[in-house]
């Protein structure tokens, strides 16, 4: 009986995770970028790299040129820094794996959320303490609504659905 229940649970679990993008394996970045190093130890402001957050819906991933403004003058002490240099020399963009993605039917803008006084950590967590960035906890509707409710923001469906 226990065997049956166990195998059923495994089957259901396997079915559930098939096709899901949430497998940790898929979150491996081509270069092991550490937010703890950059935002934590070096205390670089989020918007130095994610520079479009206050002006547009997307926060933006920094260009190689932006990385190079600092890395140009740094010596390559780790294998990942060497990787970065190779990408730069070969003039190839780094194929970052996108971790935070909202479905097509959601309208979300970083601009208005920052304008409303939210900080990056409110939704993305304390990134400056993370050496490898995991997928954000959940961006499900109930999660958004809870915050909207607490802050007296709009509950109109068309605020966030397009």
């Amino acid at each position, binding site marked *: 009986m226990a065997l049956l229940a166990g195998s059923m649970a495994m089957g259901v679990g396997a079915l559930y995770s098939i096709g899901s993008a949430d497998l940790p394996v898929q979150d491996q970045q081509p270069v092991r970028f550490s937010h703890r190093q950059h935002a934590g130890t070096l205390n670089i402001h989020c918007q130095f790299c994610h520079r479009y957050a206050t002006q547009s819906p997307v926060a933006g991933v920094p260009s190689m040129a932006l990385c190079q403004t600092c890395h140009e003058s740094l010596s390559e002490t780790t294998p990942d820094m060497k990787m970065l240099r190779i990408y730069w020399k070969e003039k190839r963009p780094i194929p970052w794996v996108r971790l935070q993605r909202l479905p097509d*039917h959601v309208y979300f803008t970083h601009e208005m959320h920052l304008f409303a006084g939210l900080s990056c950590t409110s939704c993305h967590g304390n990134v400056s303490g993370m050496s490898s960035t995991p997928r954000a906890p959940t961006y499900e509707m109930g999660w958004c609504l809870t915050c909207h409710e607490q802050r007296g923001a709009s509950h*109109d469906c068309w605020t966030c659905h*397009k």
Partner: protein
Amino acid sequence: MSQDPQATEEYSKTAASPYKWEMVVDLDRCSGCEACVVACHAENNIRISGEEEAAEGRAINWIRIERYWEGDYPNVKAKFLPVMCQHCDDAPCEPVCPVYASYHTPEGLNAQVYNRCIGVRYCGNNCPYVARQFNWFDPHWDEPLAEQLNPDVSVRSGGVMEKCTFCVQRIRSGKEAAHKEGRRVRDGEITPACVQSCPTSALIFGDRNDPDSRVSHLKKSRRGFHLMESLGTHPAVTYLRRLSE
């Protein structure tokens, strides 16, 4: 324009939001060119149906020009009637939706939430203006047309109801710009695609809560009427009668 006291009361009752969007269609100016239809398709990622589907009656148009013939040959006159979602204040499509996919926004828009829609199509039946359009199949765009999709508008899958939104994505960005500057939206700042493209300016869009807006003035015109006013749906689209009757 008949002054329906009940309608006026309804408007003030839901005046929680600063805006109430309204469109005015001047039938005297409409030449039936359908530029609005094309602009609407481009702006709102409306699926391309093709000849075959159009013949089956499945072509999707959020705004359409209805053409009626008047008189007998040879004195025939074509009369054009642009029809889009009337964004009724008492919309028949809203209460019948079992999942709240069709609902009323505080700004007087009749909204359709595509990702909530499960396709029972009751709203489509209950719309006297036949403004609601259904996706019978998944949409498809031939290359390179797929490249021109508007990122601010969802692409609707098959099995979902859709209709005119008064270009809510433009309203949204107009409001955001105004909000950041700490002011109200100015009259004429927001123009839906159809209004923008109308060569004869037959379509006018604005905020009817603003007493000085163009729509507020035009609404009061003696030529003004609503489609099927007797049904009591209180549309947010006012038509202006032709002068050359």
